[in-house]
């Protein structure tokens, strides 16, 4: 019964994201309010379904659901949508929702392929830090995903304008480049403190579990690399001349580094975090 509920909620979330992505994609190009009216509730419904699904999994298995790639990717897509919804309501940014929901659906679907069922956690994961460190780190990744989407939109608009073909209505209806830059900055300003807290709590956990707060494990160093990239972003953003185009590219590189840190290191490079798969 509960397993069926788990699967049902997952299916609802995936369907909501796919349909919501289609609706908001249409809103991006056509700017008909009806598409936003359709897409926004679907985004919220998918996000709620995901959080309920994670809660149901925890309630039925009594195993913290974020201890494997399936669980953490579920939270990653749910948090990406949640952060985007907050941004969309606060700054009226539903036009970008199609891209965020499409990425959320892709990551969620990919996560399902790693679902091996419920396994008891290995000793090093049996810690209260799992309930602190993992959600914080995954939330930072989600904030960077939102920044990445707006960076891509910034770059799209910038290069389209520069090519001189900027007259199309959908492009003109996007916020001005400086406004897009501020949105990216705000998303990174959520992600950077979160990944900093994530690295710090990870270090505290490592101190308890492995005997050293920093072991130069590939996962740690990949996270450090991403942190350095976003630190570079913030420093460049202090310079007016570098704000906008260059910082948007740095944000794109930053998100690629996050994906490498999140998936690449877990899957391809063995280290102390290998059990997470």
């Amino acid at each position, binding site marked *: 019964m509960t397993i069926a509920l788990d699967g049902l909620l997952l299916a609802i979330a995936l369907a909501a994201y796919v349909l919501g992505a289609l609706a908001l994609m249409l809103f991006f190009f056509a700017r008909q309010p009806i598409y936003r009216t359709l897409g926004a509730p679907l985004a919220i419904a998918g996000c709620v379904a995901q959080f309920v699904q994670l809660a149901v999994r925890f309630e039925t298995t009594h195993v913290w659901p974020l201890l494997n790639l399936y669980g953490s990717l579920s939270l990653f897509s749910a948090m990406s949508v949640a952060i985007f919804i907050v941004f969309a309501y606060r700054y009226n940014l539903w036009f970008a929702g199609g891209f965020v929901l499409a990425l959320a659906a892709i990551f969620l679907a990919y996560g399902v392929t790693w679902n091996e069922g419920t396994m008891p956690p290995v000793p090093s994961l049996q810690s209260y830090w799992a309930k602190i460190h993992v959600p914080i780190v995954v939330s930072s990744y989600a904030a960077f995903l939102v920044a990445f989407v707006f960076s891509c939109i910034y770059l799209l608009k910038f290069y389209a304008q520069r090519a001189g073909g900027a007259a199309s209505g959908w492009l003109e209806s996007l916020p001005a480049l400086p406004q897009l830059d501020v949105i990216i900055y705000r998303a990174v300003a959520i992600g950077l403190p979160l990944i900093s807290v994530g690295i710090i709590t990870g270090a505290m956990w490592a101190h308890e579990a492995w005997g050293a*707060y*920093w072991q130069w494990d590939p996962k740690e160093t*990949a996270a450090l690399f991403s942190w350095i990239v976003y630190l570079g972003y913030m*420093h460049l953003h202090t310079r007016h001349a570098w704000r906008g185009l260059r910082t948007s590219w740095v944000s794109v590189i930053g998100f690629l580094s996050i994906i490498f840190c999140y998936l690449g290191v877990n899957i391809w490079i063995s280290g102390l975090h290998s059990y997470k798969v």
Partner: protein
Amino acid sequence: MKAATRLYDDFVLTFGNVLFAVCLFVVWGVLTLIGVVVDQGQSPDQYVQTYAAPIARAILRLQFDNVYHSPWYVGIVGLILLSLAVCTFKRVIPARLPPLRPVKIDKMPLHDEFEIEGSESTVQTRLTSFFTTGGWRLRKRTIDGAEWSFADKHDWARRGVLVAHAGFVIIAAGTTLYWALGFSGEFGVGDGQAVRVARTGAVMRLNNFTYRIAPTQTKSGIVYQPIDYVSRVTVSGRDGVARNMTVRVNHPIDVDGTLYYQSSYGFGLRFLLEHNRHPDATVGGRTLLEGDSFDVPGTNRTVLYERFIPTVDRSNGMPTADPRVNDPAVALAVTQGGVPVGETMLPLRGSMDLGDGWRATPERYVLYSGFQYRHDPGVPLVGIGAFVLLAGLVISFYFLPARLYVQVDDLGNDRCRIGVAATTVKGYDVFASEFARLMVGLKVSTA
């Protein structure tokens, strides 16, 4: 003297430049990434086998096999600290909002003007009330006969970058403290045995080690998931008092300021070595850990105890993934004069002919527990630094120092025009939406 001054100025100009700091970040990032991609701490042969010869040579010559402790890495972190210090003193500390002086409101990128009813004094009173209740620090000045109001918010927050930089320096100091005064190591101890840790003088006796495995059915088959590793030990520290303690993963024990962690476990092995059916004392009483070896007396043969195999599949004689001890076997390798001559998997209590009348028998196994120990006096400093760094980031990102320039013009007939312009230490765009909301609020409250 002039040359020295010029050199100093160039140094300050370079190291105080944000773009130079970003260049250092790029190098730091690239070196960090090299350490992620290139397996660290392997033997030179490993790199030669893994990479093409020129790349393997480059990895070894440039110390990319241990990049995080290479001069490049330590050097770049040092340069970043230097740049951070210069930036802090030359840019961060002197940075402040502009002095209180009149501005041309309509020339400022962020500005708004509107007319309202009321005398100038009434409007001024409403303005004062609006800004002070909104948490703005209001200062009034009469400049060139005109009355100006300057409203500042979060002026203190320009210290956020300074706080973040200080946090980074404190973390660096904490890690340096470990390099200078800290130490770490590891050891294995078998059930019923005791080990004296030379560095601390502590004596640890392993009373009992247990591990728990849960065979779990997954979609890809059975996974033997480890659930718990527990070492029950008796430890004597500096005071010589023996204490019974339990060490498990995520629960280290503290003995005289040094932490001991459960890090691994394994199977020690007792061998019976015989020569022409007579027991030989060469390995008698010795427990070999995985990776240990012993020499066969009178020959140049060496027997290496590679690893313990807890369960062998009876149907095909191959090792299984089950880490619980059911049908155990032992993987052994024999070398002659350093040259491998053979490998074998021997059932426990099975014997192996080593030639010249020698025969080895793995008689029984002993569980051993692996511990790591670490004394790190820098941990509190690193913790404080992390907290300070985080506080600096939060202050920098979420508290924006801003200034409003407010002018009230009396238009006569009980009407006034209010002009407001804004500036921040981070430009105008980042404050645009808040400024728009502020103006809406101002129009409502002064109407």
